[in-house]
C-alpha cells in the first residue's frame, strides 16, 4: 500500500512517515500543497493523508481539485482544525475520513486501514480471505491450516495488497508501485522473489502467475 502524506510541519511529517512505514506502508512525504496535488494526480497512490493548513495551496483546495478532475484517491484529512464546521467542509470536499490532531498513531492507522478496505469494497474488520487472516497490528498471517507466519515488511505489504484486491489481475509494475515508495530502488524482478516467499508460506495455489501479465490472488485464479 503506497500512501501520500502531505504534512508541512518539519518535525511531525517525518515522524508520521516513519510510523507509517513501520506499520507497513510505503510513504511519500510532501510538504507543499501544489506539489502534493500534482503528485496525487500522477502517482498511483492507494490513499492520501492530507493536512489542511498547507503552504502553497490549502488542503481543502487540493482535495476539491482532485475530486473535480475525477481523482477518486481515498483521502484521510489529518488536521488540528477540529470544529464541526471544518469537518463538514472536509467531507463535503470529498474526504473519506477526518482525524483531528493531536492523535494517537494507533487511531490514525485504524482509520487508514478502514478507509482502504472501504475503498476496495471490503468489509471492515480483520483482513481475511479464504481462511487466510492477516493481522495488521502484528503483521502476521494465519493460514487456513492454522499455521502462523511472521512476515517481513515487503511480504506484508505485498500480501495486504493482494488481499485488498482479490481476484484481480495485478501486474508486476502495479505491485511495485503500490509496495514501494518513491525513494526505493524499484526492481520489478524482486516482486517475483517475494511472491515465491508468500507461496511458500501460504501454499502454492493461492497466487497464480499469468505469464507476461502479472499475478491473480485467490478466486478467479483458476
Amino acid at each position, binding site marked *: 500500500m503506497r500512501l501520500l502524506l502531505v504534512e508541512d*510541519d518539519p*518535525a*511531525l511529517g517525518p*515522524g*508520521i512517515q516513519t*510510523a507509517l512505514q513501520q506499520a507497513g506502508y510505503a510513504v511519500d512525504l510532501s510538504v507543499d500543497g501544489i506539489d502534493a496535488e500534482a503528485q496525487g494526480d500522477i502517482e498511483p497512490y492507494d490513499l492520501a493523508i492530507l493536512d489542511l*493548513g498547507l503552504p502553497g495551496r490549502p488542503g481543502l483546495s487540493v482535495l476539491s481539485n482532485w475530486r473535480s478532475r475525477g481523482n477518486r484517491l481515498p483521502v484521510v484529512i489529518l*488536521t*488540528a*482544525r*477540529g*470544529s*464541526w*464546521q471544518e*469537518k*463538514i467542509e472536509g*467531507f*463535503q470536499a470529498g*474526504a*473519506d*475520513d*477526518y482525524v*483531528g*490532531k*493531536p*492523535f*494517537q*498513531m494507533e*487511531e490514525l492507522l485504524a482509520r487508514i486501514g*478502514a478507509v482502504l478496505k*472501504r475503498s476496495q469494497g471490503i468489509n*471492515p474488520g480483520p483482513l481475511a480471505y479464504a481462511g487466510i487472516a492477516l493481522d495488521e497490528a502484528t503483521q502476521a498471517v494465519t493460514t487456513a491450516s492454522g499455521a502462523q507466519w511472521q512476515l517481513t515488511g515487503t511480504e506484508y505489504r505485498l500480501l495486504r495488497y493482494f488481499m485488498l484486491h482479490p481476484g484481480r489481475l495485478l501486474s508486476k509494475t502495479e505491485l511495485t508501485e503500490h509496495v514501494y515508495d518513491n525513494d526505493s530502488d524499484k526492481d520489478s524482478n524482486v516482486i517475483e522473489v517475494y511472491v515465491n516467499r508468500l507461496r511458500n508460506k501460504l501454499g502454492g495455489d493461492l497466487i497464480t502467475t499469468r505469464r507476461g501479465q502479472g499475478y491473480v490472488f485467490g478466486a478467479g485464479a483458476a
Partner: protein
Amino acid sequence: MISLRAKLSFWLASSLIVLLVLQWSIASVVIQQLVEAQLVDRLSQDAESLLSGIDFTAQQPDMLDTARVSGVYQRPFSGHYYVIRTTMQAEYSRSLWDSRLHVPEVEPGDQTLLRVRGPEKQPLLVAAHGYRKQGQSVTVAVAEDLTAINAGVRQFRLIHGVISFVILLALLGLQYYIVTHALRPLHKIRTDMRRLESGEIERIDAQRAPLEITPLIAELNRLLSTMSRKTRRSREALGNLAHALKTQLALLGQVAAHPQLNASPDLQTALRDTGENMRRIVERELKRARLLGAALPGKRVDLQHEIAALVKTLQMMYADKQIVMDWQVADDACYDGDQEDMLELLGNLLDNACKWCRQEMRLTVEGGEDLRLMVEDDGPGCEPDELGELTRRGFRLDESKPGSGLGLAIVKDIVDSYGGTIAFLSSPDLHGLRVEVQLPHAPRTSRPMNKKMAP
C-alpha cells in the same frame, strides 16, 4: 418610554385647535362690532334728518313735522324708533305706539349709545345725540331693533364655525398623514432592527433614512461591523492558536512514542498523560472561548440544511457502522444564534449518539416558544446515578471507546452560554440515552408591536 408620534400628534393637534378657536372668536367679535358700527352710522344719519325736521318756532304741539319722517317710524312696532327730548317735553315716534323709551338727556355735541329692551322686549340699540337748535337743547335718540342683525351675526358665526370645524378636521387628517409619513423611515428602521436580530439582514440600510437619523444608523452599522470583525478575528486567532498547539502536541505524542524511550515506560506514560491533559485543556478552553453565545445578532441558520450536512458527515465518519440516522426538523423551528455554535452543539451530541448507538440514532428538532433538540440512541444508555456526571470535563463513563470525554462538556458550555437547559434521560423508544436540549430564543429588545400601533 415616549412616543415621538404621540407627542408630535398631540402638540400639533392642540395648537391647531387653539388657533382655529381663536380665529373664530376674533372673527365673531369683529363682525359684531363692524355691523354695530354701521348701524350706529345709519342711526346718526337718521338722527340728523330728524333734527332737520324739528321746528320750535311753529308753536305746534308737535316739534316734528311728521310728514318729513320716514315711514318705518310711523308703522307700529316696526323696530325703528325715535325719541326727541327737550327740557320741557318729549316726543316719541308713532312706531312706539303707547310704550315709551327712557332716554337720558345728552349734552349738545355728545353722543351716547344705549342697549335697552324695546316695546316687545326686543333688544334695541339706541344712539342718543345732543344738539342745540334755535337756542334750545334737544336730544334726538334713534333706536333700532337688533334681533335681525343679531340673527345675521349668529348665522355668520354658525357658518364660520362649521367651516372652521371642517378645516380643522381636514388639517388634522393632513397632519396625521404628515406625521405618519415623516416617521415612516423610523418604522422601517425598527423593522430592520428586528430583521437584523433574527439574522435576515446583516446591516441596516441607511440609504433612504432621513438626514437626522443617518448618523445614528451609520454608527450602529459601524459598531455592528466592528463587533463582527473583532469576533471573527478573535475566533481566527483562537483557531490558529489551537491549531499550532495541537500540532505541537501531536509532535509531543510522537516523541513519547519514540523507541528510545521504550526503556523507561514511566517517562513515556508521564509524557503521554501530560500531552493528553494539555490537549483536553486546549480543546475545552479554546472551544469555550470561541463560543459566541447570544451576544451578537446572528445570521439565521438554516437548520434543515445544516443538519442534513452534519448527518451526511457523520454517516461518512461512521461509515463502517451503518447507522440508521433518523432526523426531523419542525417547520417552525428556527434558531437565531451563531451557526458555528449550533454545529458544535449538534455535532457533539450526534457524534456521541453515533459512538454509543448500536445501529439507530434519532434527532428531533421542535420549534415553538423555545427551540428543542432531542437526540436519542439505542446504545447502552446510562445508569440514573451517572447521568449527572456526563457533562463533567474529560469524564468518560466508558474508557473502551476512543474519545476525549469532552463532547458533552462542550455541549453543556454551549447550552449554558445561550441560557438553555440540558437533560439526560433514557429513551423510551430506543432504550438508550436521550439528551434533551432547550434553547430560548434571543431576548428581543423590540418585540413586534401591536398591529394598531404600527402605521
